[in-house]
């Protein structure tokens, strides 16, 4: 096997990177307090914790993009200058932040070499050599792409691979990955794991941040848990079970996902979708959701689920098919019509689609409902105040007062505001797209409770989620989409993770071979 870094495997147990009592606060909020840990060469070290626990801050201190207030980082006993990205890179610390480190308009070669360009002469690029090296790097990663194509034209997984190639092209001793599998398919995740293990064998240490317990158990040697900016503990992965790990993160007993009795449909068909098609995205989608029912929509990334929800909500317009709310056809492509019909969509990207971050909590909560709170066209402050109070109370939004900017809240609270905004409009059909993404374990449980109680009071819910345990726990029925089409339906009783995956993966292919990704939607579209 070709060596990825050109180095021989190293096997020592002496840590090469030591973090001593790192502390950092932002505008009065203590993000890290006296965090100390060490990393050994060639270990995969998982970093876990709820959102707001300090993981991102720790990475930023390590990679040099942020300067800690106190404490030190030592690499091979040499003190690392704080807040110095170049120094961190020189020391071999490379952080991969997915989308945020890519240049979408440039090709793979530029993306790999920017900042570290190979030169033929001072001020002149050595293009042939860069092209050769880029090609070799991508080949070793098992990817073959058009090196000149702008990154924005490549698939998510390919972009990620380019990012990894970039990280590899630097001599890294420590590779920091932050939720790297969030947008990857199963096959791509396996490829990533293979590469990581190989890097490990060559002595590269990996700091792996993830919320996914299965991945951590599959990959990591040791795990460190942060909570509220403090180090709770660092243990070999074999020494902690899932329950202990979760307890460390949350600090209290977390009730197991209640396998409560599902209510199931209690009423009429609220939402019916017939033969819905949008070329290139999805085709022939037909299903219905009844009042009181939670219908889960599972599938791989890129299967088209978000697009279906966006179409039902009116952000996009279907080319064919119809949407009926309580038997009445809905005007397609009109968000206002959908809202009037009682539909609400809580989008998956709450920072860019769900919330307006610079606005206050109050303004965000009012955004969708203010038009109905008016009195002869004018805003009614009294009605608005009542609505905001109600939303904050019922959702348990932790904020000093409704006037603070929503971007100061934690991920879980932000998601509650995003939900609350829509619940204030008293919808009858709720479309949830990844409602607990980036939400810490505690808030997750609250959200689940809320979803269930809403269903009990008659809400028809479509739950899109890539978190299989979540879908299994909440749904009354599970629909699976594959490459833009519905591939299967499972009742609550019969559903298992394996069965869902079986429907989600392309027919007849092994999980280890090529699987459905965004690029194959094009193949699917030809059949439309």
């Amino acid at each position: 096997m070709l060596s990825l870094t050109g180095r021989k495997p190293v096997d020592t147990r002496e840590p090469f990177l030591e973090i001593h009592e790192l502390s950092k606060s932002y505008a009065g909020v203590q993000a890290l307090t006296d965090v100390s840990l060490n990393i050994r060469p060639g270990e995969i070290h998982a970093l876990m914790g709820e959102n707001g626990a300090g993981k991102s801050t720790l990475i930023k201190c390590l990679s040099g993009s942020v300067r800690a207030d106190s404490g030190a980082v030592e690499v091979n006993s040499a003190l690392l200058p704080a807040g110095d990205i170049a120094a961190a890179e020189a020391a071999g610390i490379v952080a991969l932040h997915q989308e945020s480190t890519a240049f979408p308009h440039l090709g793979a070669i530029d993306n790999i070499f920017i900042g570290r360009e190979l030169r033929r002469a001072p001020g002149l690029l050595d293009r042939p050599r860069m092209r050769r090296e880029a090609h070799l790097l991508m080949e070793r990663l098992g990817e073959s792409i058009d090196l000149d194509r702008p990154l924005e034209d490549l698939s998510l997984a390919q972009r990620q691979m380019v990012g990894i190639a970039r990280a590899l092209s630097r001599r890294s001793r420590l590779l920091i990955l932050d939720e790297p599998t969030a947008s990857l398919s199963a096959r791509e995740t396996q490829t990533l794991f293979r590469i990581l293990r190989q890097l490990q064998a060559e002595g590269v240490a990996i700091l792996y941040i993830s919320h996914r317990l299965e991945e951590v158990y599959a990959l990591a040697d040791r795990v460190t848990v942060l909570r509220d900016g403090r180090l709770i503990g660092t243990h070999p992965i074999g020494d902690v079970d899932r329950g202990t790990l979760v307890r460390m993160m949350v600090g209290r007993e977390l009730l197991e996902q209640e396998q409560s009795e599902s209510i199931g449909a209690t009423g009429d068909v609220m939402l019916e979708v017939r033969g819905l098609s949008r070329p290139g995205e999805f085709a022939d989608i037909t299903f219905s959701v009844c009042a009181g029912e939670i219908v889960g929509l599972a599938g791989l990334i890129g299967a088209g689920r978000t697009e279906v929800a966006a179409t039902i909500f009116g952000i996009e317009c279907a080319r064919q098919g119809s949407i009926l709310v309580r038997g009445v056809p809905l005007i397609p492509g009109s968000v206002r019509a959908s809202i009037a019909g009682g539909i609400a969509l809580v989008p998956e990207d709450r920072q860019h689609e769900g919330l307006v971050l610079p606005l206050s909590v109050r303004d965000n909560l009012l955004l969708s409902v203010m038009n109905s709170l008016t009195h002869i066209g004018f805003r009614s402050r009294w009605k608005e105040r009542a609505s905001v109070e109600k939303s904050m109370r019922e959702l348990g939004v932790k904020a000093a007062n409704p006037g603070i900017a929503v971007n100061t809240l934690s991920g879980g609270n932000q998601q509650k505001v995003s939900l609350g905004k829509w619940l204030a409009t008293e919808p009858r059909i709720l479309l949830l797209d990844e409602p607990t993404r980036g939400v810490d374990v505690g808030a997750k449980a609250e959200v689940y409770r809320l979803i269930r109680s809403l269903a009990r009071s008659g809400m028809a819910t479509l739950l899109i989620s890539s978190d299989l345990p979540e879908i299994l726990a909440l749904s009354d029925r599970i629909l699976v989409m594959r490459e833009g089409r519905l591939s299967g339906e499972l009742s609550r009783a019969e559903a298992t993770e394996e069965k869902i995956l079986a429907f989600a993966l392309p027919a007849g292919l092994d999980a280890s071979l090529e699987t459905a990704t965004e690029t194959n939607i094009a193949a699917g579209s030809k059949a439309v």
Partner: protein
Amino acid sequence: MTAPNRKPVNETDIKIPPNRSSRVPLPTRNEIVLLLLLIGTLLLAGRLSPDFLSSRSQLELSTHVWELALLAIPMTLIVLTAGIDLSVGSTMALCAVVFGISIHAGLPPIAAALLSLLVGAGAGALNGIFVAKLKVHPLIVTLATLAAYRGIAEGISLGRPFSGFSDSFTFLGQGSILGLPVPGIVFLIVLAVAAIMIGGTPLGLSLSAIGFNEKAARYSGLAVTRIKLLLYTSSGLAAGMAALLFVARRNTAKADIGTGMELDVITAVVLGGTSIFGGRGRLFGTVLGVLLIHEVREFVSWQWNRDELNLIVVGALLILSVLADSLLSPKKR
């Protein structure tokens, strides 16, 4: 909604403080600075030349600020949504030329005026369609229409000026009612309407939301396309009104009027504290910005009679005010 009443993890219940909604919002830091600058300028002016501050002088000098002030109102709203309209000056010219041609073709003034306003609204609507429906960057669209509209004005008028309008029409620009100049009254009415709509209806918050994050605004159900279309159309309409006021005041309509007007309007709006990136801004600030530019310009002309100094002072004022604002706020841009 029957979410269970769960105690938040951090013990105490959330206390929602009573909403301190004052009907008149407090001035922002930027506006306070503007007010100080304004007062400072007037004091200085009064010192050097007391006659400048007499109400008669002020009224006389105010004649040509109303068009700028009028255009600044929709521009504020557009900039609030992170947009811009560089075509207002050219739209003014187009409307003026249309008016002139109509009058000379024999149309009664009312009909010509209505036609002119219609053209203005239409020009604005075209901007709006490109920006709102085709989702093109407003800088580019209005840069194009800045050239196109003035070009059409030049084309249909062949560079000829029109003049000799009836007295009943010129009253619009030169007359006064109860001591207030008519253009001023027009401006105040438009300002009042705009202020009520922004402050009293959901439109105000909608504009801010669109300016900060248009995508989220759309996802929240706000009629973004419709709102933007409305804004650009009213900007065009305001340009038409400004054109009529100008023609009435100067008794001439030509294709070169309003040249550079858009820059003055944007200067006033930005000076007034509206962020060019959208989301933040107030009509009150814009009014102060217009006032300050006006007083500074008029005083410089009055005292030293050199137009060049005007330009330097206003340009420097703009740069210094934004510089000060940017250096004082520690946050990254």
